[in-house]
């Protein structure tokens, strides 16, 4: 079978979170079908939060996603705090930023080292690599464990954090029951992160050795990510919309719907997003293209070493951007711990609501910008909810990439097998989190 006539049907793309299908049909060199489809079971979270107390809402929406549970919890708390007029303390802000970097580190390690690396090393999964690359796998497993321990120490648990509540933290880091013990916990975490840096350097060398296997494909698109004066946009900020020509529009989080503009594709049942162009990209590549200058110097060194230059228009480099962020998050994590230790930890109670209304929250989860919005009645019970997750924002961009990539592969006379792998790798590069897809179609707020 040559590129002139090919039929590719990937039912439930593997090594991604959630369920997605690729369907491509080529007859006599002409693309008849080229579709990215999402058949995930709907879960109705936005309906389920209605009638729940504000103290319960983040605990429910965390369950949207097991991989970006920290991000969903933070976006949810931020939206609730915005709706309820709660201003969190500086200590809460710094602990949350530390937690966010923990999740970013954790999730990117899974994606780059467990899900993407097998493609680059020519293996179907990480399991055969246990025999062929035992040292690499062992270090990957230890780095993953660090990510989990990091987020757990600050948030109580990495999957569905316990301690993060609207208004602050319900408990101090680690198993501490006073600030002195918590200080020791943070010091121990700092040492754990510093001890992991040499392992990350080893992974850098592995990645460098296989970087040549990353498909060479570029398509200019819009990149949407948080931009924050305080740091490389991750926990907080405004919405940065970077165009291929380098111009950038900054939008307030409250106006997120003017960016996401969700629409229904006639080719797919999944809901899509568009802003200035036919599609936009969210995720590590969007973040790094928007915020490259704010990367930690050590992360910049890694970027330069891997030949990464922002703006980068190759979606496959999202995985490279994630690895650069792994290094960035490690150093930023250490920086936030130092700041917290300098400030001196206090035993703080979460702040109380001062009003009841509507609010918005945005944060970057590992796979892109995430929006939560809620409305509360005067007793603190939720009357409306909306969550727009990054994977839905990326669906249209994946489709646009496929539309450009498939004809290019036909011209290059790629085999059906090569095309299938290249398309799967494309979807995987986006690190989609499809079970996150809480809704596909339009959500209207009912009064």
């Amino acid at each position, binding site marked *: 079978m040559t590129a002139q006539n090919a039929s590719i049907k990937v039912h439930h793309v593997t090594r991604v*979170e959630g369920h997605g299908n690729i369907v491509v049909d080529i007859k006599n060199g002409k693309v008849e079908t080229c579709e990215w489809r999402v058949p995930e079971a709907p879960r109705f979270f936005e309906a389920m939060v209605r009638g729940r107390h504000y103290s319960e809402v983040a605990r429910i929406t965390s*369950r949207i996603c*097991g991989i970006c549970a920290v991000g969903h919890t933070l976006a949810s708390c931020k939206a609730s705090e915005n709706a309820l007029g709660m201003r969190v303390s500086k200590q809460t802000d710094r602990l949350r930023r530390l937690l966010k970097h923990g999740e970013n580190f954790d999730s990117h390690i899974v994606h780059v080292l*467990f899900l993407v690396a*097998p493609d680059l090393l020519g293996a179907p*999964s990480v399991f055969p690599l246990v025999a062929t690359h035992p040292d690499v796998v062992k270090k990957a497993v*230890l780095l993953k464990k660090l990510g989990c321990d990091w987020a757990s120490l600050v948030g109580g648990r990495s999957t569905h954090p316990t301690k993060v509540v609207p208004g602050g933290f319900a408990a101090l880091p680690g198993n501490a029951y006073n600030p002195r013990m918590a200080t020791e916990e943070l010091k121990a975490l700092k040492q754990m992160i510093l001890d992991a840096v040499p392992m990350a350097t080893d992974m850098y060398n592995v990645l460098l050795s296989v970087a040549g296997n990353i498909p060479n494909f570029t398509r200019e698109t819009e990149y949407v990510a948080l931009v924050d004066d305080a740091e490389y946009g991750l926990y907080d900020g405004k919405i940065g919309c970077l165009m291929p020509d380098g111009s950038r529009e900054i939008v307030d989080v409250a106006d997120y719907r003017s960016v996401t503009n969700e629409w229904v594709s006639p080719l797919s049942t999944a809901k899509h997003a568009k802003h200035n162009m036919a599609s936009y990209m969210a995720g590590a590549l969007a973040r790094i293209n928007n915020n490259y200058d704010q990367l930690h110097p050590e992360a910049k060194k890694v970027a330069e070493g891997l030949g990464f230059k922002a703006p980068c228009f190759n979606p496959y480099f999202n995985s490279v951007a994630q690895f650069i962020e792994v290094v960035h998050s490690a150093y930023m994590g250490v920086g936030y711990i130092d700041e917290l230790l300098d400030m001196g930890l206090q035993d703080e109670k979460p702040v109380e609501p001062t009003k009841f209304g509507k609010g918005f929250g945005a944060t970057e989860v590992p796979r892109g910008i995430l929006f939560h919005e809620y409305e509360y009645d005067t007793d603190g019970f939720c009357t409306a909810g909306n969550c727009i997750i990054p994977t839905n924002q990326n669906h249209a961009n994946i489709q646009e990439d496929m539309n450009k990539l498939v004809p290019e592969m036909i011209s290059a006379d790629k085999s059906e097998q090569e095309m299938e792998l290249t398309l799967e790798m494309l979807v995987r590069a986006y690190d989609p989190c499809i079970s996150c897809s809480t809704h*596909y179609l339009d959500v209207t707020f009912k009064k």
Partner: protein
Amino acid sequence: MAKVKCAWFDFTCCEGCQIEMTNFGAPFLQLLDHVEVVEFREVMKETTDGPIDVAFIEGSFSREADRARLESIRERSSLVVAFGSCATSGGINALKNHMDEAEYKEYVYGADSAMPHLDTQKARPISAAIKVDYEIKGCPMSRDEFIRVVTQLLHGTDKVYLPSYPVCVECKLRETVCRYDEQDHCMGPIAIAGCGAPCPAHGIPCEACRGMVADANQEAMTKVLKEKGGLSEQWAEKKSQMFTANFRSDA
């Protein structure tokens, strides 16, 4: 000894319990000395249509279209282990079970709510569709319990002992101050233990994510939530819809 063929499958869920599988650290590699992973879509490309020794299933049974796939897994598997709350009780997905289906579909999907791919039904545990041999509860599942169950299964034990007492017991064991003494509320008195009670220790109420103990006195729980926890009548009444909707007498 031949390695035990294990496969992982997911249905309606967040896949967080599968992620917990990657959080074991070094013991995960030790586990691979004893089991052969034959299917695990989230981390590997290979799939199997052959026999499976132990199938681990995550997620709820929430649409009829999934029944055939579940039956096929059951037919090919010697043992089926449901893991995580979605699979063992319906979990958070069952929060919609007490809502009007047409109304919540319309709320989330608007005019397109009738589209066939949005088909849904009440979220049920996997055992509502097929026979399940063992259950590992929790949202997320308890990693310790997973290791315990798997270790016992590998040793050929028939009876796997898991706690039947409430979460309150575990709070007492770890000397956590009761949420009710902190002017909060808690589902601990009727929640099934085994998690080690992390939530009250972390300053938040137990939401009974693992389900209820046998013969839980739900009426008394509602009364305690109201009178000791200070919850409004309405909130106290619907508290148990959050993670234990399928345990309620009105389920």
